[in-house]
């Protein structure tokens, strides 16, 4: 009924829906856009445009606190991502391949960190570290980040696995490859995009996390979101806009790449 290339569905409702959708998109992006624009504003305290400048970005580079925070965020991000990706991938493989006792328990266990409010998780962790006498530091931050990241990786990789054609592995075994060789030459290459995608996702989440990190970061373990937060509490300055813009940019780039990697492979040709 609808011609190729045309929008399908109810005809005359189209324009209204389109307008509404774009309004919502505007609502979603305008504040961010304004934030970004004003990071180039010459004025300090006001929201009045006083000319274009990149001085705030320049001053970021000289800001010791910011630089330390960035370094800390990267350390935590990389460490937590590596660990979470490995753990999460292994669990996803287990859930997708094997039947084992404790399968249901594992699933629910993985859902919990996503479901339970960050506030509660943060409070629990800081209390725990206190009880066992572990001093708050970057290490505790990494631990906390791994805790909430494993689930994300597991979900993403599991999704990739569920579309996986098991007969490919049987074919490899049939052709002489042992299980480990099969995993290495067939399974892993095919789920790798999913694994990398999951890794990028949790890196992003780690870089952006505030609530849990605020509970478990010790002195000297300030990450970028923590630093931004304290800058916010002091006062709104274009510097905050600048660092926010950079962080947003990084996030968007990583997410776009992660999304691309999750695209399914191309279809075949007709006979």
């Amino acid at each position: 009924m609808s011609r190729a290339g045309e929008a399908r569905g109810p005809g005359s409702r189209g324009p209204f829906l389109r307008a509404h959708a774009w309004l919502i998109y505007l609502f979603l992006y305008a504040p961010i856009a304004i934030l970004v624009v004003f990071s180039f504003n010459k004025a300090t305290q006001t929201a009045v445009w006083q000319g274009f400048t990149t001085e705030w970005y320049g001053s970021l580079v000289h800001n010791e606190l910011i630089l330390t925070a960035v370094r800390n965020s990267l350390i935590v991000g990389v460490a937590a991502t590596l660990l979470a990706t490995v753990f999460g991938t292994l669990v996803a493989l287990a859930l997708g391949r094997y039947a084992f006792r404790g399968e249901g328990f594992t699933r629910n266990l993985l859902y919990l960190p996503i479901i339970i409010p960050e506030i509660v998780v943060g409070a629990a962790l800081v209390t725990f570290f206190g009880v066992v006498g572990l001093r708050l530091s970057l290490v505790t931050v990494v631990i906390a980040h791994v805790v909430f990241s494993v689930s994300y990786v597991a979900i993403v990789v599991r999704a990739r696995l569920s579309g996986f054609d098991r007969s490919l592995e049987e074919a490899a075994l049939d052709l002489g490859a042992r299980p480990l060789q099969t995993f290495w030459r067939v399974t892993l290459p095919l789920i790798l995009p999913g694994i990398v995608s999951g890794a990028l996702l949790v890196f992003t989440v780690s870089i952006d996390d505030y609530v849990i990190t605020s509970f478990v970061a010790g002195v000297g373990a300030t990450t970028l979101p923590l630093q931004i937060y304290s800058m916010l509490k002091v006062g709104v300055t274009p510097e905050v806009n600048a660092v926010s813009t950079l962080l947003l940019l990084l996030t968007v780039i990583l997410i776009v790449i992660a999304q691309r990697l999750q695209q399914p492979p191309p279809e075949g040709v007709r006979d």
Partner: protein
Amino acid sequence: MKRARDPRSKIRNPAFPLVLPTWLVLGVFFLLPLTILFVISFAQRGTYGSLRPIEDFGHYVTSGKILANYARSLHPIYLQIFWRSLWMAVVTTVLCLALSYPVAYYIAVVAPPRRRNFLLGLAVVPFWTSFLIRTYAWMFLLRTEGLINRTLLSAGLVSHPLELLYNNFAVLIGLLYGEIPFMILPLFASLEKLDLSLLEASADLGASRASTFLRVTVPLTMPGIVAGIILVFVPSLGQFIVSDLLGGARTILAGNLIQNQFAVARNKPFGSAVAFELTAAVLALLFVYTIYTRRKGQDVLL
């Protein structure tokens, strides 16, 4: 081609080394801390923020002192906070649903197929960016020296700046802003699977557009609606950042209360009690959701 999950080809033991690291990490650094927190919620705060030692445990239990924190949380001051958290979460969820459904419908049904990925991507990106930064953006806009007030003043629409920040309104806007992407995605997922020929059949049988929407579209996309509601309501309930940055002293939510107890008031036991009440509420909701999905036989993430 997907081979159905064949129980015949699953082997028993190789799974254990795969799940062990995760069990250890989550067991030690997640379940254990939560348990400790739970236990602490029955204790009392001692000097310098530590715990007060209990002399007579038997008496402690029977006299009801053990539930002192929970009892305290029922005090009107705190009930007010819980109530505020609740109605804010409800309002946010309802508004989110109302605003997001048309967007998801547009992307999934109306928009040309080749644009779909792009449009969805546009909706997804905010989903993953920093909640802190997105909330700050509204701080920037709503301040007395912020852009909105500046624009209104210079346009002559108001004589002095509006108090847009540090009230319920600001918190609601912030919540709405933060949560809309969380609603769009599950709605889209459900709408994408919608068989349009059903809508055509409904129209063919004489139903008006509104009628088709209510009697066909909504019931068929209910899984997405329910998922979206859960994905928005739960985080809204436990919200901290939005109320911290955009709310004032009169807009404290449950999340702020908890954080306050841990960071400032140093009353961990009481903070734990409130934390667990929040958790209980969330888990109860999810329990209901699980029953709903199990009955409907939905796809599971894991």
